[in-house]
Structures are given as structure tokens and as C-alpha cells.
């Protein structure tokens, strides 16, 4: 039990991961799918950041007053990953806007039905 509680960050990570993937698969709305994708990516940020933190640790600046430092590398990596995530989300939303202009809908089943109806319309 204590072990379970001690690893609660991992539980949150796995929960977010599964929730994100579930939204992505279960929802037909293209924007909601992107939200799921975003939640899924966010869980990975947590996976990297949480182990880098030491309780009572400080920023890695050498000073005689501090002995315990947090690992800065995961933070730097995740800063990059966040930028990548934002770029992906922005591009995905831009595509949804264009899809709505072209199809008049952002529901996946309606779009597929429209494609089946119109055949190869340009």
C-alpha cells in the first residue's frame, strides 16, 4: 500500500495516458480527438518531469548552502516536447478548420458519409 502511494505520480501518468487514448479512439468529433491527443501527450510530460524532482531539492545552481539538486535535463527535454505538442495541436486544429470549410462538418462519420456520397469530387 505504501508502495502504491509512493508511486502516485506514475498512477496519474498512466491514468492520463489511458484517458487520452480512450478519448482519441472513442470520439468521432475531430476537435475532441485532438483534445484526447493532447491529454495523451501531456501524460508523457509528467512521466519525464516527476522522476526529475527531488523533494527538498533546488535548482541546480552550485552554492554552499544547498546539497540536494533536482535533475534539470528532463525539464529541458519536456520544454522541447511541449513546443512540439503545441505545433502539432495548432496544425491539427488548422486542418480541422480546413476540413470544416470543405465538408461543412467536423464529425468523422458525417465526413466519411459525405465522401462516400460524392465519390471523387474535386
Amino acid at each position, binding site marked *: 500500500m505504501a508502495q502504491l502511494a509512493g508511486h502516485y505520480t506514475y498512477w496519474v501518468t498512466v491514468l492520463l495516458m489511458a484517458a487520452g*487514448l480512450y478519448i482519441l479512439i472513442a470520439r468521432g468529433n475531430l476537435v475532441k480527438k485532438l483534445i484526447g491527443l493532447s491529454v495523451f501527450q501531456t501524460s508523457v510530460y509528467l512521466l519525464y518531469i516527476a522522476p526529475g524532482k527531488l523533494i527538498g531539492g533546488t535548482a541546480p545552481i552550485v552554492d554552499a548552502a544547498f546539497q540536494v539538486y533536482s535533475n534539470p535535463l528532463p525539464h529541458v*527535454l519536456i520544454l522541447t516536447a511541449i513546443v*512540439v505538442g503545441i505545433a502539432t495541436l495548432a496544425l491539427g486544429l488548422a486542418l*480541422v478548420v480546413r*476540413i470544416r470549410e470543405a465538408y461543412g462538418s467536423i464529425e468523422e462519420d458525417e465526413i466519411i458519409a459525405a465522401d462516400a456520397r460524392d465519390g471523387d469530387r474535386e
Partner: protein
Amino acid sequence: MIAAHLPVLLVVVPLAAAPLIVLLRHAGIAWALAVAAAWFALGAGLALAAEVARAGVGALVAPYALRSVAAEVPPERRYLYYAVHCLCLAGLLGMTATGDAFNLFVFMEIASLAMYILIALGRHRRALLAAYQYLVLGTIGATFYVIGVGLLYLATGTLNLADMAARLPAIEGTRPVLAALAFITVGLSLKAAIFPLHLWLPNAYAYAPSAATSFIAATATKVSVYVLMRYYFGVFGAHLVVASLPVPQILLGLSIAAILTASLVALWQADLRRLLAYSSVAQIGYITLGIGLATRDGLTAAVVHLFNHGITKGALFLLVGGIALRAGGAGFERLRGLARSMPLTCFGVTLAGLSLIGVPGTAGFISKWYLVLGALEAGHGWLAAYVVLTSLIAVAYVWRFVEAAYLSAPAAGAARVAEAPLPMLATAWLLVGACVWFGFDTSFTVEGARRAAQLLLGGAP
């Protein structure tokens, strides 16, 4: 001094060309810059065998793109196409050049984001949906890869692939390492469109602009397969992946399924581009089959086929782009009697098609030959027979083109179309020529691949 930093320079030049193109906002200059950057990458890449294929196709497609893009992309957005092309090239070259697990992710996302944009530029509105689906699946793949890298980082404390390989044997077989292997395999398989994770590929290839399709089909999935091989044999090590886990068996099973189903599905497509897209899934199956054999000849076949299939599919999609430009599409009803009006294009498709089948005297034969040798070396005689038999399905789908273009009369009232524009034809024929050339002169491809296979399996080169 310069030689030591060549791999980095190779990535930086296209990367720097992209914002320059956006600032200049002129399609002509943009095209010239994209060509210059891509040719520089090729010139520099010749010094480094691993990158030649990628840079070469990028360099060839860039001049080709001028006419094709002019026909398919609205004028005010053309310069952006070239900017994205440069970004994509930079990302792919970065993926091959880097030795850092996290940098690899960043380069992968640079290339992927650029690819989503290239696909969305297609004329048909389905291109948008194809780009969206690729974006969702590609991002899941990349995120799975990052999860795997994160677990490896937590277990080893390093992101450098070489350091990781040195530290992994001590903790081999622990659960985080196995989980990391699984996440990285699934993530990269999504990017590489390994069956059954290929669902994004056919629509993406069929609806993207022709120049983009040739570029992506010849490079993108291949780079991911290359990275997967690097992880299997360079980081985790053959003794873990091959000896103590059923990875080769799983890969073999998936490859066998991929080759058969994708070839059969290709046979029933009504559009030449979709046919070629499904054939790509089958050909990736042959590559993973080589990896799954995990013998020296098997890996040689996988590496050779990475290259040979890259040039073959690149040539095919370039030529089909010409057909789409002149005939208004690549549906089989438009191909009827096309050999009379576009003889050079159709002959090129037929020659490259022979290479796709693996007829002796073409590049495709060399890969199939080593694949059969690898299967025999691993003691799977039936697998060798399977490779030969499934090539017959490729004969059938290439024959569908030959029948339509050469043996059918043109549809009544169809307008006579002109031969494809010269720049497009010339670049496509360069690649077709390469398909034949590498069918006879194997010193470059096979020797390079053999050295790579030796290195991957941990022997002295």
C-alpha cells in the same frame, strides 16, 4: 574540420533554407533555393553513404517539383511548399544523422509536421482528411516512441544511443527495458507503416501532391525502418531482441501477413496511385521480413531493399505524377491506351514495375535474391518459396497497368494528351535508370548494406 561536421551541416543547410524561403516569398527563388539546398545535401551526403538515398531523392524531387507544384498548388502558396519540403528533408536527414534518442524524436516531429502539411496541400478535399488521420496516428507513434525513450532514460540515465547500448546489458531483461522496447517498436512501426499499423498510408499517398508523394514514399517510412533497425541491433542488442524475445517471430508473422494482404488489396484498386501505395505496404513487409530473419543475408536484404525500393517507388510516383498532370488523374479508366500518347512515361512505369516485381537485371531482383538467401541461411526454405510466389502477385498488379496502357484502346472521345513535361520526365528517368543500374552494379548497394549488416550484428566490418 569541415569533414568532421559534415553530418550536422547536411541537416543545417536545408533547415536554414526553409525560413529564408518564407522571408523571400517568391516561388521561383524558393524553388532555386530548395534545389540548391537539396543538391548541397546530396553532394555532401555522397561522403556519407547512409544519407545518400534520402538526400538523393530529395535532391531529385526538388527540380521535378517545379512543374508539378505549379499545377497542383495555388500560386500564392507555392513558396511555402518549398519551405516545407526543405524542413521535411532537414528532419529526415537529422533522424539518420543524430546519435541522441531525444534529438531523434525532435527531428522525427520536424519531418512529420512538414509531411502533414505536404499531404494537406493536395487538390482533393480528401487530402485534408488523410493529413488529419496521419497527424493523429503519427503523433500517437511519436508519443509512444518518447514514452519508450523516457523509460530508457530513467533506467540508464543517458540519452546518447551509444552510451545507452553500453549501459543496457547490466539491466537487461528488467521490466522498464522490456516496456521501452515494446513502446519504441510500436511507435516506430506506426511511423514506418508496418502492417497492421499502415492505415494512414494509402490515403496519404493517394491524395498528396505528386511531388510530395514521391518524396514521402521514397524516404519517410524508410527512415523509420532504419531507426527501428538501429534500436534493435545498435541499442538493445541482437542478443536481447533476437535471442531471448520472440521479436523476430512476431516480425516474420506480420511481414508474411503484410505481403499477402497488401499485395492482394493492391490488385483491386481502381487508381494507380492507391495501387502503388498498397504495394508500398507490401514492400515494407519484405524489408521487415529481412529484419525478422536476423541473419547477415537477411539484414543485408533489408538494407538493400530500403534503398532499392526507395528509388523504385520514387521513380514510379514521379512518373504517375506526370500521368496525373496530363491525363487529369491516375484512375485506371484514364490509363487506357495511354502508351500511344505518353510512350516514354509508360515505358518508364513498366521498367520500374519490373524492378518492383524483382525481375533479374533490376534493382528489385538484388533485394529479393538476398532475401531468399537470408531465408535459406535461417533454415526457412518455405519462406524463400513464399517470397518468390508473392512476387507473382506483383506481376499481376504491374500487368494491370501494362494491359490498360498498352493493350487497351483509348476510351472513345478521349482527348489526346501530351507527353509529361521534360524536367519531370528527366528526373523520373534518372531514377528508372538507377533501378536498372543497381540491378547490374551491386558494388555500392550490396557492399554498403553488407557492412551495415555486419555492424548491426556486432561483428567486425
